[in-house]
């Protein structure tokens, strides 16, 4: 039995401990590893897609539909038609009376006219005008909102808040389109529509809630306090036109005073009316 005495391994003698035998071992190992890496490298073949587990369905690539003036104008029409449907539903249910009913009648005409104008611009741009509501917004927003309102403790209040929110959304949509559309005549049309729908929103607020809702407390440096599970809307809420999503609470309050929350956003990739989409 022999005992080799090893010098402690420190930085200063690291090279001295690699003798000729160790050098051969290290060299051989390096060559082997290099061969292994080379074998796995350049000529590697096979599926480069991410690994899949179990029997999941194959992922299909999303279609690449163009977003052009026609698509944007058809989308604008669809938003207008959706708002018309909101008002006409309220009219059919008879939830508005007196001056509010008169105002809603006027707003229906305004939105129908704007939709028609967007349709004319669509055709002038070489497309097919869109004459119905926005399917995505109807399915994801309007239908569940209507279902909630029908179970509400105060449907007229909810329809008013729904109308204010969608007028704001429509104004924001047209505001956004001003720099996306390519023709000046189109930009002017959506700028006018944006101005009109902002006016509509402020007018509904004032008609429904009076002078107490003229200016948001936020513009006065005060705290914005929402009560009774509702989100207060004001004739003037911001300094610049906001295109952010809006919160909307509808329906009856639960035991905690909480109502059903919804979020309303301007149309995006999933709710645009592409040219490939046809009306049923």
């Amino acid at each position: 039995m022999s005992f080799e005495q090893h010098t402690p391994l420190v930085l200063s003698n690291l090279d001295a401990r690699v003798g000729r035998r160790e050098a051969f071992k290290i060299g051989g190992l390096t060559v082997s590893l290099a061969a292994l890496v080379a074998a796995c490298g350049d000529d590697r073949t096979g599926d480069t897609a991410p690994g899949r587990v179990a029997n999941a369905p194959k992922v299909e690539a999303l279609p690449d539909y163009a977003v052009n003036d026609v698509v944007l104008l058809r989308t604008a029409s669809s938003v207008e038609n959706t708002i018309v449907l909101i008002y006409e539903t309220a009219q059919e249910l008879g939830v508005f009376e007196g001056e509010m009913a008169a105002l809603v009648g006027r707003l229906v005409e305004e939105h129908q006219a704007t939709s028609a104008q967007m349709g004319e611009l669509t055709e002038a741009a070489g497309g097919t005008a869109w004459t119905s509501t926005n399917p995505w917004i109807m399915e994801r927003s309007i239908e569940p909102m209507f279902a909630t309102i029908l179970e509400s403790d105060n449907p007229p209040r909810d329809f008013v808040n729904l109308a204010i929110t969608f007028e704001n959304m429509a104004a924001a949509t047209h505001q956004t389109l001003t720099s996306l559309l390519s023709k000046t005549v189109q930009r002017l049309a959506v700028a006018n529509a944006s101005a009109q729908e902002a006016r509509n929103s402020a007018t509904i607020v004032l008609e429904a809630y009076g002078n107490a809702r003229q200016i948001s407390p936020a513009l006065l440096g005060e705290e914005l306090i929402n009560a009774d599970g509702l989100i207060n809307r004001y004739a003037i809420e911001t300094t610049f036109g906001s295109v952010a999503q809006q919160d909307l609470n509808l329906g009856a309050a639960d035991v905690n005073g909480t109502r059903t929350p919804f979020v309303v956003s301007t149309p995006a990739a999933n709710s645009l009316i592409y040219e490939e989409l046809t009306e049923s």
Partner: protein
Amino acid sequence: MDFEPAEPAPTRRSFLGAAGVVGVVGASVAALSGQSAAAAPDRPTDEDRAELTEALRLELAATELYRLAAAELAGDSQVVAAVMANQHRAYAEAISGMIGLSSPGPNAEVVEQLSSSFMTSDVQAFSNAARSLENTAVSTHIALLGAYDSVQAINLTASIITVESRHAPMLTNLAGFSSNLDEMLGNTADALDISGGAA
């Protein structure tokens, strides 16, 4: 300059009469309506800067007019005037920041024509004058928007238009015309011809 009438029809044209330059930008806008804005520049062009400077002067004039009103009014209407002054000052600052121009001064013609209407303690008189100014400002910005080339100028102007359009019915309501839907929802004001620096 001819401002939106203060009173509902039939006394519409009596507010400021035909004093000053009566200008409508509509004709020039119509001529532009076939132009394409494709591949628009991001930053304001030299032409945009000239137009934006006039828009800035209009906003500075509005700021000054509302400050004059706030000094005369009391209570809630004073608060309204002060908020309106802040709103228009913010628009002026935003335009100024975009074009890198500190202060060309307010549009003197607008201030001169409207200052007596704004320097009042009568809430209805103030509201009448103010809603006329707001409607005129909206029409003017829309007309200018049709002439802008750059994305920044269009976007900023669009965001101003949206809120000034809300100012108008709020002030119309304050003036006591809330039941007149034509006045609340409509805007028949002509755009000011400020494109040539007339003021």
